[in-house]
């Protein structure tokens, strides 16, 4: 049993190493590409623009629910004036980066894994190689660079809309004074909190998009089945692995930041 456990741990470490090299190769390949701006714009549209509505919606509902839950907890201690602090810090430090990453994985990551898997099965990736085009730089590189731009922005959108959602339930519905709510938000959030959130969003972005792209790109090697089933398996594993890695990385980064 210990041997099996050891083997599994080693294979996870090996795979993480492969994913890191894959991501680095894609970033390096991107800067050797022609027409980088056009490719980057398309990738920003795919990851940033398309994910914006879902990130904004989830941000709003997260804020609304947090406003409700925290109000009824805080009111027991007569501390409902701290609602702004609780909502803002929870969102900026933890929930914003984590939930944004999970939403982007669900929306763009799974689509990316499927698309790359289909391109692999359809020999489009081989075709790029025969045309002397670096497939990593061409297909994955722009998406990784777009991630570095989009993830912090989407996280900021999530945080802001979430804090506004907390205001809607706390102040508009449950009559916490609006001035107190916003004052607590501005007073309690420090630059270090925002910085920590952005560090997380960058790490989560690179991790999740690398994992999703790696799974799709290597469908022929990694999936247990060929063809369509292989693609669906790659997409599923990409989402599961990315989500688990987001939570694991969140714990690690938080323990370093605190």
């Amino acid at each position, binding site marked *: 049993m210990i041997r099996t456990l050891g083997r599994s741990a080693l294979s996870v470490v090996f795979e993480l190493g492969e994913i890191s090299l894959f991501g680095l190769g894609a970033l390096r390949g991107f800067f050797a*590409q*022609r*027409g980088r701006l056009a490719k980057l714009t398309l990738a920003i549209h795919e990851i940033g623009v398309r994910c914006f509505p879902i990130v904004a919606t989830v941000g709003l509902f997260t804020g609304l629910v947090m406003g409700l839950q925290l109000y009824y907890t805080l009111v027991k201690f007569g501390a409902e004036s701290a609602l702004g602090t609780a909502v803002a810090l929870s969102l900026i430090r933890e929930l914003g980066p984590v939930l944004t990453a999970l939403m982007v994985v669900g929306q763009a990551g799974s689509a990316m894994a499927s698309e790359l898997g289909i391109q692999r099965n*359809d*020999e*489009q990736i*081989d*075709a790029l*190689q*025969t*045309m*002397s*085009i670096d497939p990593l730089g*061409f297909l994955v590189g722009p998406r990784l660079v777009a991630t570095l731009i989009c993830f912090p922005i989407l996280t900021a959108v999530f945080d802001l809309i979430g804090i506004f959602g907390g205001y809607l339930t706390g102040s508009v519905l449950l009559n916490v004074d609006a001035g107190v709510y916003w004052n607590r938000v501005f007073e309690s959030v420090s630059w270090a909190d925002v910085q920590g959130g952005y560090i997380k969003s960058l790490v989560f972005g690179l991790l999740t998009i690398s994992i999703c792209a790696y799974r799709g790109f290597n469908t022929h090697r990694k999936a247990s089945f060929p063809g369509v089933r292989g693609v669906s398996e790659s997409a599923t594993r990409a989402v599961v692995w990315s989500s688990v890695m987001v939570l694991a990385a969140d714990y690690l980064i938080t323990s370093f930041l605190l």
Partner: protein
Amino acid sequence: MDAFLKIRGLKKHFGDKRVLDGVDLDVAAASVTTIIGKSGIGKSVLLKCIANLLQPDAGTIQLDGQAIAQSRRRANSDAGVSFSYMFQNNALFDSLSTFDNVALPLREATKLGRADIQQRVSAMLQQLELSDAADRFPGELSGGMKKRVALGRALITKPQVVLFDEPTTGLDPERKYSVFEMIADYRERFGFTALLVSHDIPEVFEISDQVAWLDGGRIQFCGPPEALNSEAQTALSGFLSKANYGRKASAQFGGTQ
């Protein structure tokens, strides 16, 4: 025969399975060579080794007297490339128009300017009778048109060798003939060396200067299609008869069987 493409002792295995076990093959410049053999015998693997999509375990591939890696470096430095590959399923990019699919290797792998690319691609589309379909996407094209787009993309970089992996898969007999005619026609016009993998026996022999039979990991027969009849008593005859190479071929090449 002066070999333009020379393969010696090529070996490739996957796990315990030895797919290529010392393939030797000579291909003359501007000729059409067809590789035949049973399904799963390693024909596509051979093509992929030549195209550098698979790394052979042993053996050498020389193009015009130079090892293939050297030849690739030399080719990448100027406008042309050594090899192009036409895939079984065309491998066209669904999100790109016909024009963009054909222009892709020029845009991404050469330093040609926009005007030059526009001119070369337009000329190629005209030659392939695809000018009217320039703005259409692969999903909007017929099977034959997709083949022509794939051929255009393979030829746009002026390659010395074009590798065709079962170019007529999924096409009806009429379209098969037109694809073979197209390959023969464009080979004459563009002067490339063609290496085909095909199961369309004997139709493919009509355009072939040389036929190579791959079996047991090696080339067991290599010669002009006319010579196939004299090999009738060997193991090749069994394969050819199963591949429906009978009276039709005899009539075609004037042999007796």
